């Protein structure tokens, strides 16, 4: 809670970045453009504000609200392996696996209404943006049953809090002003994130807007994380020296 920052940074005002046929545009702002992971990091939250405005110079007439909104937040792509344990030789061991390539490391869907309330026409579109669907959309390697393993992967990701749906996650503050709050767990993947806002009216997609933010390790955590990869030998030696010193210091301090 305390980490929630209310400093609004307008991250983009590209007036004509939208498809011109839309009669409205979405202006959005994020509380943080960058989430920093430092020593005390135990998860964070991020608030996105948005406003629906008439598109300047649009040929089609402006549509009045109320609107429905779906927002997807996608983390950096990773490869994940799903393993299944079976009982063999009397013990439980992993003996089936399937690798999913370029799956989102984080994927949340927030909506202003129940997903069922979005009418049938955009549902095909929505079906693809549902978190559960993500493991089905990527390339797999392995012989295991894709149907079952993809379902299990989305279940496991939801259990970890890395995938999820919040059907009332988008709140309308007025007819056109809305906000949504995103919870990032302490093990949130590091990298670039993309939030995409879809605006619906009577089940029709009438506008779309994307905004990016990033999750980075900063300061000491970043130094440790990067040196472990870049200078592994020095990192290992320093760990050992630290251990020897700590052990020696303990011996000296407690010597009676």
């Amino acid at each position, binding site marked *: 809670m305390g980490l929630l920052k209310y400093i609004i940074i307008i991250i983009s005002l590209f007036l004509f970045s939208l498809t011109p046929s839309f009669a409205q545009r979405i202006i959005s702002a994020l509380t943080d453009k960058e989430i920093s992971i430092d020593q005390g990091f135990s998860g964070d939250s991020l608030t996105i504000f948005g406003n629906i405005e008439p598109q300047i110079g649009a040929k089609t007439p402006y549509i009045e609200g109320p609107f429905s909104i779906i927002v997807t937040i996608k983390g950096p792509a990773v490869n994940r392996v799903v393993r299944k344990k079976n009982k063999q030789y009397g013990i439980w061991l992993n003996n089936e696996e399937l690798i999913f390539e370029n799956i989102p490391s984080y994927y949340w869907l927030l909506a202003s209404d129940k997903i069922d309330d979005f009418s049938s026409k955009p549902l095909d579109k929505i079906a693809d943006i549902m978190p559960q669907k993500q493991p089905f959309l990527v390339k797999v390697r392995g012989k295991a049953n894709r149907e079952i393993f993809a379902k299990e992967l989305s279940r496991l990701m939801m259990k970890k809090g890395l995938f999820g749906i919040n059907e009332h996650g988008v709140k309308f503050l007025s007819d056109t002003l809305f906000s949504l709050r995103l919870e990032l*767990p302490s093990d949130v993947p590091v990298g670039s994130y993309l939030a995409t806002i879809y605006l619906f009216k009577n089940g029709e997609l009438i506008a779309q807007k994307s905004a990016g933010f990033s999750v980075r390790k900063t300061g000491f955590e970043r130094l440790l994380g990067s040196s472990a990869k870049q200078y592994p030998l020095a990192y290992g030696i320093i*760990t050992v020296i630290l251990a020897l010193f700590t052990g020696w210091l303990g011996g000296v301090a407690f010597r009676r």
Partner: protein
Amino acid sequence: MLGQAKNSGNLQVQIYLPIAELSLNLFFLIGIGGIVGFLSGMFGVGGGFLLTPLLIFSGIPAPVAVASVTGQVVAASTSGALSYMRRNLIDFHLALYLILSGIIGAFLGVYSFSALRQIGQLDLVISLGYLIFLGSIGIIMLIEALRSLWRYRGGEKLPTKLPGKHNWVHGLPLRIRFKRSNLYVSVLPVLIIGASIGFLGALLGIGGGFILVPALIYILRVPGSVVIGTSLVHVLAIMAAATILHATSNYSVDILLAFCLMVGGVVGAQFGASIGKILRADQLRAMLALIVLLVALRFASSLIFTPDDIFSTSLITLAEIR
């Protein structure tokens, strides 16, 4: 479970672990380091065999737990080794042979660790390894300790030297005289013991003191006075080598995690060592045997009983997919 990643205790001091990529309660980490350090100081073992499972059961990925505990064991053994060195209770000549072979073992251990991780069988091998080694060593130790406790109760004076000082091991070729231990034995069993402990230590994230001490006593007949000091020096050297090997080949050493455990462990070990001096060796062995057996049982149950979730997922890098 113990100290979940998303903690909800009263002491909300979270520390973010940069390699494990999650945050844990700082007091939980120092606390388990302290308790395990206390036991390790008391029994003269590294304590890794307790710490690694505790971390794994707390949600830290097994590769990070194993590699970081190797660093912690270095610190835990340093204070002990120094204390034994001051009292001149180390056979450095014997330790040198054990260490040289041990480093080769550690190298093979870390290599197997990476290979098993890639094929997804690391957790299984860790569980099986703990079960087999802790189970068998625990049973042997318990029987031995109970026997000697029984004799003590009966008023029988304990022999200062183990009966049958010479066994078949002492008949092997390439004999070397270890003055400090008052031994004249073949170098082969020494090297095999050193290498095996190094291998298991690096693979399972254990110092191996609880295997090494009985091996030195029962196989090589090293006198009880120098056994713990010598084993601590071996554990220290092998775990230092394994830490560097894990850091360079798996990038899985979390220095902050290791440091928190070290601080707790070093402090705990000092108190443990004082208690250890008060208790008799056979009492200590009986207690250690029981703890070892409990950990073995915990792993046995994870292999035998139906797991909560038969599916699991982990990140995999492109290099691992190939």
